């Protein structure tokens, strides 16, 4: 009996377990998924939680619901991976040996890595929305907030779902307008990049969106210190951005397990071959989802497209065949713009987001790089698809490779 071990039962790990269980013979292969806790969080919902569009119960389900028959879920904290001995050591001293290891440990946010962020004001005037706790605390804060200067800040790239801070601003604009206090709220976006939109086609199509929503932009701002008492961000270049309410996207690192196992780079992301998803350092370790160091978005759609390529490649690896260099960096993201509308973007390593229709050329029903109601309905409808089809490893009728059909280049 050979062992396939998957670290992490999040979006990527759960999909991989279900897909591989369908194709690996049960008499020859065991599939074990390891995670430290029992809750699976629907992460796209964290964006909508602060505005009361979902509540916590909508977003949390037991991980075990989604792992099918023949998959063992171990809930135990892992200590480290010993790649030479091909074992995963658990903190309780037990170890799991593997023939193939898949790392799907995602990211962690590190507010403590920015000076002052976890100090006075944290969860009182400064919040994140990348954790269930942060998003829920922010929801309570926004309910009673009477207005002032709201700063959304990205400490540094890379972050999960790079459009989320923009979406937060758009939704905040709509939220405060509906509460009738939009004129009492100043919205500011402080980003380390040189603009909210950095790709030519997107800035041509969406460049004036921030202006329309009344968002003030502070560019190339690298936060050094958060002064929770004085209520201001201080940049490395000594510029200051004052705030009444800070919604920050803290630094992202890979998992501490990766760090302890010395498998990651300086941000604990695992160096990965960009087209095959094999780890650079070890032939029998594969990586997908947010845990990789790949230059594509850290997003569920990316994990989904990777899972299709990786399922094939693990079968090839087991069969002693060459790996297929099939992953093209494909990502597909909804961008909520408030007032019941959203934008959809579809892109990969080499093609920037283009306008067009998706998935059916000319018909859609989704519009690329353009606001529409249908896009928003798609975002809402996606939750059911996520729980019932995507996580269970069902085939979705969307190609894992980006297609140019339907895009107006």
């Amino acid at each position, binding site marked *: 009996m050979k062992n396939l071990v998957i670290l992490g039962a999040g979006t990527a790990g759960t999909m991989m377990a279900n897909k591989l269980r369908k194709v690996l013979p049960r008499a020859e292969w065991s599939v074990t998924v390891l995670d430290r806790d029992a809750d699976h969080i629907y992460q796209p919902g964290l964006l909508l939680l602060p505005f009361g569009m979902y509540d916590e119960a909508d977003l949390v389900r037991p991980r075990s619901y989604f792992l099918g028959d023949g998959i063992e879920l171990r809930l135990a904290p892992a200590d480290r991976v010993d790649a030479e001995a091909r074992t995963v050591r658990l903190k309780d001293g037990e170890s799991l040996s593997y023939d193939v290891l898949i790392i799907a440990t995602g990211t962690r946010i590190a507010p403590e890595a920015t000076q002052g962020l976890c100090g006075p004001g944290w969860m009182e005037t400064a919040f994140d929305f990348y954790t269930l706790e942060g998003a829920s605390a922010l929801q309570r804060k926004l309910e009673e907030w009477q207005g002032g200067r709201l700063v959304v800040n990205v400490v540094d790239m890379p972050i999960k779902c790079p459009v989320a801070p923009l979406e937060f601003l758009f939704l905040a604009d709509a939220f405060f307008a509906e509460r009738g206090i939009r004129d009492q709220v100043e919205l500011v976006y402080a980003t380390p990049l040189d603009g909210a939109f*950095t790709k030519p086609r997107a800035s041509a*199509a969406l460049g004036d969106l921030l202006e329309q929503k009344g968002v003030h932009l502070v560019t*190339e701002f690298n936060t050094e210190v958060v002064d929770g008492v004085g209520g201001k961000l201080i940049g490395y*270049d000594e510029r200051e951005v004052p705030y009444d309410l800070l919604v920050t996207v803290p630094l992202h690192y890979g998992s501490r397990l990766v760090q302890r196992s010395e498998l990651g780079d300086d941000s604990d992301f695992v160096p990965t071959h960009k087209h095959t998803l094999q780890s650079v350092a070890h032939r029998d370790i594969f990586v997908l989802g947010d845990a990789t160091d790949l230059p594509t978005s850290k997003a569920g759609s990316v994990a989904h497209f990777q899972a299709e390529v990786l399922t094939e490649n693990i079968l090839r690896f087991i069969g002693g065949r060459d790996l297929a260099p099939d992953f093209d960096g494909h990502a597909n993201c909804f961008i909520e713009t408030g007032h019941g509308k959203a934008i959809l973007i579809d892109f990969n390593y080499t093609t920037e*987001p283009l306008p067009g229709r998706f998935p*059916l050329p000319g018909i859609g029903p989704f519009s690329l790089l353009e606001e529409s109601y249908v896009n928003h309905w798609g975002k809402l409808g996606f939750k059911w698809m996520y729980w019932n089809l995507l996580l269970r490893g*069902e085939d979705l009728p969307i*190609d894992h490779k980006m*297609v*140019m059909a339907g895009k107006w280049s």
Partner: protein
Amino acid sequence: MNAPLDHNATVESRIEALSDKVDLLLDRQRAMSELVSESGPILTAMMDAGTRGLGEWEERGYFAFGRSTLRLLDRVATSYSSEDVDELGDAVVGILDTVRNLTQSDVLNVANEATDVLHRADALDPVGVVGAIRKSKDEDIQRGLAVMLEVLRTVGKAAQSDSGATPGQRRLASRLAPSGRRAARPVTRSAPRRRPAARSASPAAAGGAPKQAQGGLARWACVTIPGHALDSGGFLVDPQTWNREFAVLMAAEAGIGELTDEHWQVVDAMRAHYLSVGASPNVRKLANLSGLGTKAIYQLFKKAPGSTAARVAGVPKPVGCI
């Protein structure tokens, strides 16, 4: 003793009845989940075929044509009332009548023979006024003249009674006339209802983007470094064409002055990362890779050190996904 037995029997029969229903439910459930897993590949194949087919239509311009037609319809709908369209419909019927009359076989014969004459025009002798009078003795010519005069009379009559047309017809005629004649008409009504701003064409947005970017980005459009193509933001177009001379020239352009060993440490780390990973490192990563720390990067590369160092190192600017 009978009562419990009866009771048991009832429970048993109920359970039996229930188990039938449970079986049915399970069966349906199985069918549903089978449907889901079976339809996955089918849907994928359908989407594949559909995407390919529709992609061809897109390429041939069917959808672009459709969209322009919709915009045309929108303009028509906003500048004409439904009465106008009804009148246009009447006019179309009239046009069709004319076309039908014109295409009757006898009319077409006349036209065909007339064009034959034109083809033989070279062979005909020129005719003066006297010649014309002489030719008018020909019976065919006389019949032809009679027809032409009758046509002329009808045209003259119609021209006179034009003033007798209904106001609607005259309005329609004026609308349908070439643009010069209706320039003063309030067609501009449709102007404010054009495209929403979000989809506005590039001129407006292009004006917006640099405004956002701040920091005197516009300046980079004018900077040139001989032998190296730069984009409008001052980034090297092809990172492979980078060399150390380029870095020195670019550093001068970027206001850094002379490159010290520490500058080179950062530049080399940045290039190495780009060449291995395919993406430009951000400031934090650069601080780690070069081993100098974030504060030092700011001191070395001044304001916006991520972009400045990327320009000097000849790698693309750090970008988000949109």
